[in-house]
């Protein structure tokens, strides 16, 4: 029983260990894409202009 509990805790531990960095990576990835592809700032738009068109992000 104790061993089973330990295994359960171990599984939950692994999931938390994966979930936190994975969530952080998802958020940082989304931040980068929104920044380069979607931000309405004129300067960012000008700098990333050709990249936005090539990736077919809605532009202008």
């Amino acid at each position, binding site marked *: 029983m104790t061993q089973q509990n330990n295994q359960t805790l171990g599984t939950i531990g692994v999931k938390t260990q994966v979930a936190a960095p994975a969530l952080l990576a998802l958020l940082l990835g989304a931040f980068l894409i929104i920044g380069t592809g979607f931000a309405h700032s004129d300067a960012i*738009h000008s700098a990333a*202009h050709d990249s936005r*068109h*090539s990736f077919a992000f*809605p532009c202008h």
Partner: protein
Amino acid sequence: MFRRIFATALIAGLLSGFGISVVQEFTTTPIIIHAEKFEGGKVGDPQKQSLPHRGLKLISPALAHGDNSKKTHSDEGAWAPDDGIERTLFTTIANVLTGTGFALIMVACFAIAGSPINGRTGVLWGLAGFGIISLAPALGLPPEVPGAMAAELSGRQTWWFFCVAATAAGLWCMIFRKGVPWALAGIILVALPHLIGAPQPERVGGPVPPEIAAHFVAASLFTAAVFWCLTGWLAGTFWARFAPEE
């Protein structure tokens, strides 16, 4: 796990961003520069440029809305990279950041899915990314050359995010869940953004010849396919390489 996710994504994003910048120089960038000549009114029928009206906008090139070297537009004070090396440099930086962003999301999905990944299965994830990010939104909002006509920007961006989210959810239902109800739910989710429809301009036209616009759609989708296969392969390869030793 933190180090494995971020090391994989950063290396894959950096390499795919640089790689796709080289490909773009031969595929999409020449067409963008060609289209800007029409958009700037140097070639073609200037009458066509009187078409925009309420609720309709011309998709214009980088801020100067024409030749960057002749800042005659009202945006004269706004910054834009000069044509040539500076413009290529900023495009490459944007590609590397975008590539890293997509690689981070893809590698996060590797970690959450938990199944073994290598370069070959990474390409399959890349193809899913191509379907979700490039192919599905292109059905409602085809890749646009500078000078094309389009509906208001915020509406298109909102529809783009909706389409990406629905397609991703739909593919998840079809790939990671078994049974007819899940498959049906997946098909409905993938189809839903297109049944609702993307915002479209009230009229079409603009100064850029349709042949150039059509060529750009093919070049953009081709380039995206290369980018996604490359990112998937790199991410899968480094994900396997950085696996903890048993």
